[in-house]
C-alpha cells in the first residue's frame, strides 16, 4: 500500500508542478543527494506532511497490497499548478462537465414531472456545490448521463471532468482514476418486501431467490458468501443489466430479495413503500468523486469542497432531504448517516 502511495505521490507531484516544478525538484534533489542524503524524503514531500515514516513503510510493503483505498486521496491543502481548473475556467461554455446517473432515484435522477428537466438527488447536490466552488455558479454544470460500465472510460478519455455517480472507491479503480476523499459510506445490503421473513444477509435467505446486477459487487459478494455467510440453498437468479431491474423482478414476485449497495437499495425502497432494507450493510464501501489521474489540482479542489460541504452542514441537509427517510430504519441511524472522515495520503 505504501509503496503504491509513494509512487503515486511522486508521480502526481511531478505532474502537478509542471515543467518548472520538476526542474526545481531536480535541482533540489541534486542538492539533497550531494548535501543531505538523510533528508531526501522531506525534500520531495512538499506539504503532504506524512513524513519519512510512510516512505520507510512503503519500501517494505508489496505493490499489490491495497487496503483502505478510500484513504488515498490528495490533501485539499496541496499546492501546485491549477492547470485543469484553469482549463475549465477558460472554456467558452464555462461549465463543469460531470458524468452522472439519471436513473438513480434520490441520487441522480431526472423527474419526468419536473418541467425544467433539472436533475436532482444527493449526487446532484454535491455537483452543484463543486461547481459553485470552482466557477462561482452552482448551475454552471453540463450533466452527462454515463452508463455504469463507461464511468472509468469517460474519465480517462477526458469526456467528462469528473464522475459523481454512486461510484465505489476500490483498489482496481484507483489505478485508473483519481478519487476524491470519500463522501458517502455504504455497504451491500438486502432489500425485501416488508412482510418477508428475510431479516438480512444471513440464514433467513435460505431457499430464496436473490437478484443482483451484472458485474456488480453484490453479485460477487453473493457468490463468495454462498455456503458460508448465507445458506447454500440461496438461488442467485440470472443477473440483470441494472440494479433497478431487480426492483421490477421483486415487485413482480420473480425474486424474493435484492442485494445491492445500501444507497441504491434505499433508492429502490423510496420507490416502493412495500419494500424495505433488511439488516445492516454487510460490507464497507465508500463513494468518491472520480477524476482523471492527471487532474491533481481538481482532486484537491473537490476535497476542499467536500471538507467545507461537510463542515457547514450542507452534506447533512442533503442527506436529510434525499436519504434519511429510507436509509435510517426507524430510530436506528444508518452507518451512512454520518459523513465519512477524510484521511488523505
Amino acid at each position, binding site marked *: 500500500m505504501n509503496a503504491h502511495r509513494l509512487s503515486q505521490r511522486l508521480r502526481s507531484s511531478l505532474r502537478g508542478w509542471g515543467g518548472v516544478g520538476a526542474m526545481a525538484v531536480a535541482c533540489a534533489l541534486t542538492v539533497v543527494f550531494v548535501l543531505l542524503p538523510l533528508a531526501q524524503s522531506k525534500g520531495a514531500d512538499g506539504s503532504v506532511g506524512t513524513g519519512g515514516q510512510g516512505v520507510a513503510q512503503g519500501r517494505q510493503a508489496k505493490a499489490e497490497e491495497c487496503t483502505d483505498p478510500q484513504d488515498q486521496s490528495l490533501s485539499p491543502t496541496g499546492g501546485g499548478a491549477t492547470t485543469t481548473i484553469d482549463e475549465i475556467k477558460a472554456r467558452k461554455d464555462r461549465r463543469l*462537465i460531470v458524468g452522472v446517473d*439519471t*436513473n*438513480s*432515484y434520490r441520487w441522480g*435522477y*431526472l*423527474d*419526468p*414531472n*419536473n418541467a*425544467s*428537466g433539472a436533475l436532482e438527488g444527493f449526487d446532484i447536490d454535491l455537483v452543484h456545490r463543486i461547481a459553485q466552488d470552482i466557477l462561482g455558479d452552482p448551475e454552471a454544470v*453540463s*450533466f*452527462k*448521463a*454515463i*452508463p*455504469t*460500465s*463507461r464511468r472509468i*472510460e469517460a474519465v480517462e478519455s477526458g469526456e467528462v471532468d469528473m464522475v459523481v455517480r454512486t461510484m465505489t472507491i476500490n483498489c482496481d479503480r484507483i489505478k485508473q482514476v483519481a478519487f476524491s476523499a470519500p463522501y458517502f459510506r455504504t455497504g451491500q445490503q438486502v432489500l425485501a418486501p416488508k412482510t418477508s421473513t428475510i431479516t438480512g444477509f444471513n440464514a433467513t435467505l435460505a431457499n430464496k431467490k436473490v437478484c443482483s446486477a451484472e458485474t456488480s459487487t453484490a453479485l460477487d459478494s453473493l457468490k463468495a458468501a454462498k455456503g458460508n455467510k448465507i445458506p447454500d440453498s440461496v438461488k442467485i437468479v440470472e443477473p440483470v*443489466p*441494472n440494479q*433497478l*431491474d431487480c*426492483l*421490477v423482478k421483486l*415487485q413482480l414476485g420473480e425474486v424474493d430479495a435484492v442485494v445491492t449497495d445500501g444507497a441504491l437499495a434505499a433508492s*429502490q425502497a423510496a*420507490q*416502493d413503500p412495500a419494500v424495505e432494507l433488511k439488516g445492516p450493510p454487510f460490507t464497507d464501501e465508500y463513494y468518491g468523486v472520480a477524476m482523471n489521474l492527471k487532474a491533481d489540482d481538481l482532486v484537491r479542489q473537490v476535497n476542499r469542497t467536500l471538507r467545507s460541504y461537510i463542515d457547514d452542514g450542507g452534506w447533512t441537509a442533503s442527506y436529510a432531504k434525499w436519504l434519511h427517510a429510507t436509509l435510517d430504519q426507524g430510530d436506528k441511524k444508518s452507518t451512512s448517516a454520518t459523513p465519512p472522515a477524510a484521511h488523505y495520503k
Partner: protein
Amino acid sequence: MSVRAAILAATMTMGEVEVTHPPKSTTAPPGSGLPTMPVVPPPQGQPVPPAAAPGSPAAPEPGPARRTAFAEGADKLRAAATTEPGRLRIIGALLALLVVLFGAITAWQMSDRAAAADDVLNRSQPLSSDAADIYRALADANTAAASGYLAGLQEKPAMRKGYEDDIREAADKLVTAAANSDAGSESAKAIAQLNEQLPEYKGLVETARANNRQGFPVGGAYLRAANEKMQKQMLPKAQDLYTWENQRLQSDYADAKAFPWAALGLGVAVLAALVWAQRRNYQRTNRVLNHGLITASGACVVVLLWLVVGHTVARAGLNDSYDHGVRSLNVLQDARIASLTARSDENLSLIRRGADTQKVGDETRDAYAVGYETQIGQLASALAKADSLADDSAGQKPVADANSFMKAWKDRHVVAQGLNDKGNYQQARDKVIGVGKDPTSVCFDNVDKALVTALDHEQAEFKQAATGGRDAFTGLPYGAAVLAVLAAAGAVLGIGRRLSEYR
C-alpha cells in the same frame, strides 16, 4: 386351368392384332380359329350381354373351377371382338369412357387449381397479411408505449389511442388467426402463447406508466422489461406465425400454378383415339365425315385449348400477383418493422439513459443507440429493395417519399443525439418526442404513412393480379364437364350410326 390361360392369352393377342391391322372387309373375322370358346355368338346383330349371360351358367358342372367375374368379362369382350359390331361397340364404349374421364380429370384438376387460386386470394394471403399485421401491431404498440413514456405528461391523446388501437388490433387478429389454425399445430401454440403474453406485456407497460407518473425511475425499468418481452418473446413468435402463414401461401401458390399434366395428357390421348377411330372408319367405309366423332373431337380440342390457355393466363396472373404483390408486400412489411424498431430504440435510448450498454468492438455503447443504427440501416436496405420491386410510379412514389423522410429522420436524429451527448437532455428529448423544432417524431410518422400508402398500393396490385389469375379458371371445370359429356355423346352417336348399318 393353365391350358385355358394359355389359350386366353393367345386369343387376346389375336384380338389385338386384329384391331391394329383390321381387315378391309366388313365381314366377321374367322371365328373358327377359336374352337374353345364356350359360347360363339351369332355373327351379326346379337348384342354381347345376352349371348354371354347364359354362357356362364351354361357350365355349372363341377369340372371347371368357378370362374371370376373378370374372366367372364374378358370372355365376353373376346367374344364381342370377333365381330365388327362388337368391335364398334367396344370402340364406342372406350371412346366415351376416355372422353368422360378426360372431362372429369380436367374438371377435377382445374377446380383444384381454382380453389387454390381462390385460397391465395381470399384465405392464405389475407392470413399471411393478418400475421404480418399482428407483428406490425405489436411492434407499433411497443413503439407507441416507448414514445408515450418518454413524452410523459406531454403524451398526446392520439399517441395513447394509437397504442390502445394497436393492442386491440393485435388481439383481434390473433382471434382470426386462431380460428384459421389447426388445433395442436405450431401456429396454434404460438397464437396461444401470444394470447397469454399480450396481457402480461400490457401490465408491464401500464406499471411503467404509473411509476413514471409518480416520478419513479423504476418505470423505465418496467418499460425495458416490457420491451424485452416484446422483442425477445412476442415478436419472434409473431415472426414464426408469419413465416408459417407465408408457407401456406406459397403452397397455395404452388397448388394453383401446378400444370395439369394429367388432364393435358389424357386430352391428347383422347384426341389421338378419336382420330384413330375416324381413320378406321374412313378405311372401312370410305366415308370421310362422321358427325358424331367430329363433334367429339371438336369438343375435346376446345377443352384442351381452354385448359392450356386458361391455365397459362391464370398462372401469369398468379405469378404477377406474387412478383408485384407478395414480394413487394414482404419487403415493405420488413421496412415498416425496421422503422418501428428504430423508433422505439430511439425513445428507449433516452428513457434508459445508458442503463443498457453493449460492446461494439472495443467500444462500450448504449445498446439502444446501436439498435437504432442497425434498424435504420435495415430500413434503408428494405426501401432500396422495395424501390427495385415497385413496377409503376404509383408504387415507387411512396417508397421514394419514405426514403427521403428516412434521410431527414437520420439527420435530425444526429442533431438530437448530439444534444444528448452534450448533456442537453431536455432539448434532445423535446426533439424526439416532437415538441421541439425539427422533431424526429414527424419524420418517423411520415415514413410510416408513406409505407402504409405503399403497402396499400401493393395490396391492391396483388388483389388485382390474383383476382385476374383466379378468374381465368372461372367456368373451366364446368365447361370441361359439359363439353366432355357432349364429346362423349358425339362419340357414342357417331359410333352408333355406324353400328346401325349392321341392323
